[in-house]
């Protein structure tokens, strides 16, 4: 009995322990924040915890007896899942959608593990459900974020593609520009190489960097032997020394001087040399020496000048014969050796005058050709200006008396003027020219020759007339060769249009200047200046 009692007591205690454990297990399962249930082999729920009841919406009590498959949206998939559980002892999981009692679809992840008895028979399974709404949301968000990032990345990639394309385009442009520059350079080089004139280029260190083929030919030199050499070294090369002597600046050593179209004779050849400082933004790149071969022009010039001399001589020879023949006729008429009528005498006089004009014209032409060739020679002497003027005035007065209505006046501001150094013959040509023009173009009025001082060291000689004047629009061409004003041509007064050109050249060769003021129909004032003798003789002579 005691044994029974003891046994009963033990059983009771064991029962109590079991109850205690069950309660503990219940509390534990209820405490765990996981929905959990036990399912029998026919998929019916045997037990469910508090969270299961909550998530399914059926509560703990009503959950028991439900077919687990009914709780999920994806029927096929839950069946397949359970089938896998039956056959394996491993824990499996799957994401599915739970349909709650209120028909709410909840994204969940389910975990299941098969239960087996000691014989290994399948006795059902445990199934846990985890609400993955938040996880889904998170993953959705992550997915969106990811997509966004992907989109951005795509955009960035596209942008980069654009940039890459742009870069490629730039590179292409650069390449194009490079090719263009190369082409331009080739073109420039071709121009230099084929240029008809010689070209040499010295860098700022006075080193010869370029010599074109024409220059090689002109100087009979091989570019390889001279390029890269400094001026000093180049002096040792015979063909170059004369050119270098010509262009080197004597005052500043190792410097090239500015030369503009100056003539250089080397042997039988003549060159026109021009140096140009090449600058870019105030930085000197060097000096370009331009060598223009004028040997042929020089020869032509000489031939032309010889031709003019010969032609002028040939023209003048018969004119002097005619001059003297006509003179003889007139003389003999006066001496009454010949009986000529007044008309005949008049004709001969006119022929004589025409002949004189012809002589003057030829002399003018000769003078112009000499001026242009720089062969117009001056023989200056120190003289009193009246030594030049008086003989002209004496003749002029006689001539002017034949013309009624025109009066001549000599206006000396002072009695004595400083001496001048002039070529008397040439300055006489100038004064004669101005006086001749005045009388030619004045029908009525006065002609005044004035001598005065301009400042302290210049003499001013002027001729004023009451003549036809020069049309304003033609005034600037007055000193041009062969120029004759429109009103003058209409008046049909003889003239070559060379007088003022020659006069201006003569005056300028004396270091003076020539000018005029004129109003058409009123009159003209022509003047020129001459430097007076002052200081040493050499200085005074520098203009010749």
């Amino acid at each position, binding site marked *: 009995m005691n044994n029974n009692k003891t046994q009963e007591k033990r059983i009771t205690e064991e029962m109590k322990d079991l109850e205690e454990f069950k309660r503990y297990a219940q509390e534990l399962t209820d405490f765990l924040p996981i929905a959990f249930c036990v399912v029998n082999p026919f998929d019916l729920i045997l037990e469910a915890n508090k969270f299961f009841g909550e998530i399914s919406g059926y509560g703990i009590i009503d959950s028991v007896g439900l077919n687990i498959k009914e709780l999920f949206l994806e029927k096929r998939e839950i069946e397949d899942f359970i089938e896998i559980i039956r056959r394996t002892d491993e824990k499996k999981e799957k994401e599915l959608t739970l349909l709650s009692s209120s028909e709410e679809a909840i994204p969940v992840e389910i975990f299941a593990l098969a239960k087996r008895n000691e014989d290994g028979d399948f006795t059902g399974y445990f199934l846990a459900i985890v609400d993955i709404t938040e996880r889904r949301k998170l993953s959705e968000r992550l997915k969106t974020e990811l997509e966004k990032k992907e989109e951005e990345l795509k955009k960035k990639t596209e942008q980069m593609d654009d940039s890459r394309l742009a870069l490629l385009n730039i590179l292409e442009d650069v390449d194009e520009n490079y090719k263009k520059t190369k082409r331009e350079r080739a073109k420039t080089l071709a121009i230099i190489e084929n240029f008809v004139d010689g070209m040499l280029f010295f860098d700022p260190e006075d080193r010869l960097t370029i010599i074109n083929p024409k220059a090689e030919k002109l100087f009979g030199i091989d570019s390889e032997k001279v390029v890269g050499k400094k001026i000093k070294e180049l002096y040792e090369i015979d063909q170059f020394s004369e050119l270098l002597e010509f262009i080197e600046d004597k005052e500043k050593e190792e410097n090239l001087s500015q030369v503009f179209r100056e003539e250089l004779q080397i042997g039988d050849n003549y060159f026109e040399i021009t140096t140009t400082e090449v600058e870019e933004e105030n930085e000197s790149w060097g000096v370009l020496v331009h060598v223009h071969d004028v040997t042929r022009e020089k020869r032509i010039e000489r031939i032309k000048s010889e031709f003019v001399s010969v032609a002028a*001589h040939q023209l003048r020879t018969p004119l*002097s*014969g005619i001059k003297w023949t006509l003179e003889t006729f007139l003389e003999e008429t006066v001496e009454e050796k010949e009986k000529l009528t007044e008309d005949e005498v008049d004709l001969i006089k006119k022929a004589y005058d025409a002949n004189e004009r012809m002589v003057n014209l030829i002399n003018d032409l000769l003078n112009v050709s000499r001026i242009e060739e720089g062969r117009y020679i001056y023989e200056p002497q120190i003289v009193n200006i009246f030594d030049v003027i008086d003989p002209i005035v004496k003749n002029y007065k006689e001539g002017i008396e034949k013309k009624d209505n025109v009066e001549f006046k000599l206006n000396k501001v002072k009695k004595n003027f400083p001496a001048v150094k002039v070529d008397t013959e040439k300055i006489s040509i100038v004064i004669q020219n101005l006086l001749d023009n005045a009388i030619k173009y004045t029908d009525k009025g006065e002609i005044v020759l004035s001598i005065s001082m301009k400042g302290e060291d210049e003499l001013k000689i002027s001729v004023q007339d009451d003549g036809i004047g020069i049309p304003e629009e033609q005034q600037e061409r007055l000193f041009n060769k062969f120029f004759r004003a429109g009103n003058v041509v209409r008046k049909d007064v003889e003239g070559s249009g060379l007088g003022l050109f020659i006069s201006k050249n003569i005056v300028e060769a004396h270091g003076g200047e020539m000018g005029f003021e004129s109003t058409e129909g009123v009159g003209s004032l022509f003047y020129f200046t001459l430097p007076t003798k002052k200081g040493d003789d050499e200085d005074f002579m520098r203009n010749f």
Partner: protein
Amino acid sequence: MKKVLIIEDEKLVRNLISKKLSEKGFVVEIAENGKKGFQKIKETEPDLILLDIIMPEMNGFEVLEKMQEENIEVPVVIVSNSGQPVEIDKAKEYGVRDWIVKTKFDLQEVIEKTVAQIGKPQK
């Protein structure tokens, strides 16, 4: 009788001067170029030579050169169409008395200048 030799290639000029001088009472010899002129200098021994510059065969300067070579000291007056200072200076070195530019002077003046060199002809 003063003798003048005219060396001049231009016939008209030569004849005009010759005529005038003859009228004045000079004995006139003529030559149409430098070469013939130089021969005439030696043959006729003139008192004065009127010499042109630009002539065929031998020009005026060549005549002056020849005269200098052979020490012929006859006064010379150049009668030429040109009259460049360089030429005149060159002529002066040969001792030429005067240089007359034909177109600048009347015939009358040429005669006067000739007379001035050798005096009036003895009649």
